[in-house]
């Protein structure tokens, strides 16, 4: 298990592979973000985006899925307080393949003795190497329990 004590500032991780499909973009948008450029190819073409694009919140959801699949199992994390400075930099389109690069920026000792906050900057990139979304997550890491290795 990787505890708060084991995390080092500057640590870099590359992970994830998420194939974005048209059906999933539309399904997410119908549920949570029913704006025309997320729902309909033709409406997307007429918008400033020039085609169907994923909801930014959907990109966030795909990001957290990649995080869960690659890191959460070995990390003593307990969710996140939130995030700062989220940027939606490029549209995400059907057929894009996303992956993540994360860097540990800062460790913050919290008020509670059993956990700390780790600020992790992540960049979600597409298959052309363009960054489509970036954010700084405030991840809650548990501290190593006394007496454990």
């Amino acid at each position, binding site marked *: 298990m990787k505890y708060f004590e084991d995390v080092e500032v500057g640590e870099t991780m590359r992970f994830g592979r998420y194939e974005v499909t048209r059906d999933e973009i539309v399904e997410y948008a119908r549920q949570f973000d029913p704006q025309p450029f997320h729902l309909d190819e033709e409406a997307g073409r007429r918008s400033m985006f020039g085609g169907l694009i994923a909801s930014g*919140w959907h990109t966030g959801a795909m990001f*957290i899925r990649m995080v869960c699949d690659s890191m959460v199992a070995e990390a003593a994390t307990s969710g996140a307080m939130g*995030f700062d*400075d989220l940027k939606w930099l490029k549209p995400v389109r059907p057929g894009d393949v996303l992956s993540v690069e994360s860097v540990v920026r800062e460790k913050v000792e919290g008020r509670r003795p059993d956990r700390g906050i780790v600020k992790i900057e992540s960049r979600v990139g597409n298959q052309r190497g363009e960054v489509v979304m970036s954010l700084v997550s405030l991840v809650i890491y548990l501290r190593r329990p006394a007496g454990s290795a």
Partner: protein
Amino acid sequence: MRYWEDIDVGETTALGTRAITEAEILAFARKYDPQPFHTDPEAARRSIFGGLIASGWHTCALLMRLSVEAAQREQAAATGSPGLDSCRWLKPVRPGDVLSGRTEVLETWPSRTKPIGFVRRRVEMLNQHGEIVVAIVGVTMYRRRPVDGR
């Protein structure tokens, strides 16, 4: 149509209300955020949260849904967002919670290069106890009123 010019600093909007069910929490989490305290009621009871809680990304998605519905009601010429300054998940969201949204306009400024303007807002979601469960500060883009528009 409500354009960038029609949005004033200080204006507040109630975004409507919706309940969240255990089935919705499980379905979202299994697809996007499969951590035990979001996907497994028994594991959640043993976690620091003491019971099943919604993914924060699910709570944000519901807040987005309420925001989009409000924008469509007022026929806002909204055209997406470049990003968010901050998002804080302040309280757990649990099955059966009844969530309502509210927003306040903090700042507006025009684009120098495109016929759009920007609006910075605080957007919050509260539960049935009046507790703020998520607080976001973010920016939305709006189209400018056409020169011959009304």
